[in-house]
């Protein structure tokens, strides 16, 4: 019997020792392997160098496809098949005032410049503007361009009166073009224009949408950006023309915010104080709708219908939230991109015709509530 007891005791001890020993070893090895794997992976990540520089831009055959418009703004632009005559270009651009809208245009310019560089063509440029829009400030910048060694001088016209200076520059032998939102006056000697060619229509379209929303009745106020800025004024004209069509609608007030959100806010407050029964506001630039909705929200006047222009993130959020009825979004990126393509042609001495139009027209898309989220995602990567 003692033999049995000894045998079984030894068996039990062996089972305990072997199992616990195995488990301890396994735990150690597997836990270590998890951490070691991560350490290797993290070390590998730290050792990695940055990805290679951007690859070559699509060739000329892809040029037609580059025009394929994505939703409202086309970020997938590719240079067309035009072969520049020089390896280096130097441009001077000036625009109305420092504002995010022209930063969006700048992104298109930078993309085109990058693609040319990838082709071995260096494009350098100045892209300057005064902090506040004014004819005098723009003239000052133009004189700066006049004195520099630039292949092309490009201008987003702050006021039609600038056209005279552009003619002067042209007469001096400078190659002058206009771009962005406002063309020069009719008959100006500038070579070409790239940008919004339908500001009047844009103003009319957003106003028509407002009228329909209001059932073609009610008092309307119009907010405009910079006084004298062709694009803003043309949109306001378009708005006036539409409102004039409807007997039960009337523009009761007009204000300029000088591209300032704060001023737009104050102008809206003033509108509502004077016309408590105001039914809608037409906003003709980027800052107008933001200031207007902020004021309406603070005054708890959600009954006033707002329509506006451009792609400000806050304004698009207001569209998404139903505080702005619609926005006319211009394809700023393409404006900038095409400005460089046209400037290169102009620098090469190519006149408008088969290779590019005298006016390169860029699209404006009306964005309503159901599309605002998509627009926010495309422009700002914002997803709810």
């Amino acid at each position, binding site marked *: *019997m003692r033999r*049995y*007891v000894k045998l*079984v005791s030894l*068996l*039990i001890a062996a*089972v*305990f020792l072997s*199992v616990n020993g*195995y*488990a301890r070893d*396994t*735990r150690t090895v*597997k*836990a270590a392997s*998890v*951490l070691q794997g*991560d*350490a290797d*992976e*993290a*070390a590998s*990540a*730290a050792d*990695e160098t*940055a*990805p290679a520089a951007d690859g070559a831009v699509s060739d000329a055959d892809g040029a037609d496809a580059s025009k394929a418009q994505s939703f409202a*703004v086309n*970020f997938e632009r590719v240079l067309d098949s035009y072969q520049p005559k020089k390896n280096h270009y130097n441009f001077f651009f000036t625009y109305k005032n*420092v*504002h*995010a809208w*022209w*930063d*969006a245009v*700048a*992104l*298109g*310019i*930078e*993309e085109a*410049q990058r693609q040319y*560089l990838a082709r071995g063509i*260096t*494009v*350098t*440029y*100045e*892209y*300057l*503007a005064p*902090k506040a829009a004014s004819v005098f400030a723009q003239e000052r910048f133009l004189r700066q361009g006049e004195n520099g060694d630039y292949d092309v001088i490009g201008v987003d016209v702050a006021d039609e009166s600038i056209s005279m200076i552009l003619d002067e520059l042209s007469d001096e032998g400078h190659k002058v073009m206009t771009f962005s939102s406002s063309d020069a006056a009719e008959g100006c000697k500038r070579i070409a224009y790239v940008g919004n060619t339908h500001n009047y229509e844009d103003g009319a379209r957003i106003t028509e949408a407002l009228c329909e929303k209001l059932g073609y009745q009610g008092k309307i106020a119009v907010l405009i950006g910079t006084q004298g800025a062709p694009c803003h004024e043309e949109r306001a004209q378009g708005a006036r023309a539409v409102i004039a069509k409807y007997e039960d609608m009337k523009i009761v007030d007009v204000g300029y915010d000088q591209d300032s959100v704060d001023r737009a806010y104050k102008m809206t407050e003033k509108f509502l104080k004077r016309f408590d029964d105001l039914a809608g506001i037409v906003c003709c630039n980027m800052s107008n709708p933001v200031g207007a909705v902020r004021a309406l929200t603070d005054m708890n006047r959600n009954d006033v219908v707002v329509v506006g222009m451009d792609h400000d993130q806050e304004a698009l959020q207001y569209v998404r939230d139903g505080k702005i009825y619609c926005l006319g979004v211009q394809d700023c990126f393409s404006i900038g991109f095409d400005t460089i393509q046209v400037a290169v042609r102009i620098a090469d001495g190519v006149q408008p015709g088969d290779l590019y139009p005298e006016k390169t027209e860029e699209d404006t898309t009306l964005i309503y509530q159901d599309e605002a989220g998509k627009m926010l*995602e*495309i*422009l*700002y*990567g*914002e*997803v*709810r």
Partner: protein
Amino acid sequence: MKRSIQLTAVIGALLLAILLAGLALWVTGGAAVSTEQAVDRLSDFYLQELAGRRSQVVSSMIDTNIEQMQRAMNAVTEDDLASEASLRSFIGKIETLYDLDLFAVVDEADVVYCRYATYMGGSRYDFLSMDLSRSGPVISTVHQYGGTKKICIVIPLSGLTFMDRELKACFVQTDIEELAEMLAFDNDQNETWFGMYYRNGENLTHLDFGPVGKGQNLLEIAKEVIPEDEWTVLNENFRNGMQGFIEISFDADKHIMYYTPIRDTGWMMTVLISERLIQDQVRGISDELIRRTTIQFIISGLALTLYFLALLLESRRESRILLEKEKEHSKASRERARRSESELGVMKGIANKDPLTGVQSKYAYTEKVKELDQMILSGDDVSFAVVIGDLNGLKRINDTFGHAAGDEYLKEAAAVLCEIYEHSPVYRVGGDEFAAVLQGVDYRNRSVLLERLNTQIEENARNGRAVIATGMAERLPEDQNVLAVFDRADRLMYERKQELKASHV
């Protein structure tokens, strides 16, 4: 004794079995709890390691860029600042030297000078709204088209002028997506994610953060899936740049998120891991441990069962052996008793019989007297008679013819008595004295038998053969013992002896 051992063994086995089962439950239950704890601890450690390393990479990249810019601006010469072309050339050299995406300087009018462009930065770069003269390096971001962002690492400048304007800062612009992709995990299994967020929860990168989409605000998403109090802590920690852990379940899939501030940036480094990843690893170990522990307990249980079974069987076998031994011992004892009884009977027989004559001995007579006295004392109606016989002339025969002749004379006398009282015991109660106790048939025929004996004696006397003087007495109701009867028979025997002497000598 043996039964007690068996009972102890059985109870012991049961107690051990219960103990083993309890231990098994405790160990497996403990293993499950330990697994959970291990998962939590390993997850925490794992996430801290992941986030810490990546945060360090970002900080190192920032430090390197700052150092490079400081070196560059220390090396800038008056010639470099003589014209826009020379400045662009200098910037180009620095970009090439340090392999920078974009290096730029900014003047007091917020004009940004790059390698290929000069542009207005006021509406584009948030850092230009700051008073850079009073700050150290600034880490900022700038929005690009499509919602992408770039990192701007800015250092303030002083004492440098360009085209009559003071240079207020220089900065390096880095593609945040390239950095993010470099830091991102090889996420084939979709179980670990890395992210960088502003403190308001907005994503810095274009990377999905697990179930949180790239364009979604992390804090807003978290608010929908975690309890309010936990969200408050998370939100506060983000706002204040504090590190922490939080459990987040997306579609019942539990995740652990670790967040830690990235030094000097105002950003949060986040790492999210599906608990499945750790669980799979740890549970694999735990399951193996539980499996082996279970096997261990089963084997131990079986071994113990066998052990106690063996103990029981051995005990029973020993019991059987002991029983057999006891049986044998009992049998031997009985045999010994039987033998003793037999030997006693022989001894008794020897003691009860007179060896010379073959009649009952004096001892047997004493035993018979005790038996009868006991019956009288008990009040039984006992009827018997005592015959006393005394052999005449024995001394003369011994002296004349020797003891052998005397012995023969005694045997003849005994034979006479046994022949007459054939249904009664005859005792030799002395050297030449005999007694017979008559009961039953001989008692009822006592007178006839005595007459027949006397006739035989008289004839023997005439033939020179054994002469026995006899006396017989019956038990009378007043007799309280055998001795009283004996005494009367003895007196009658002496009287008869005298008669015989008188007639034959």
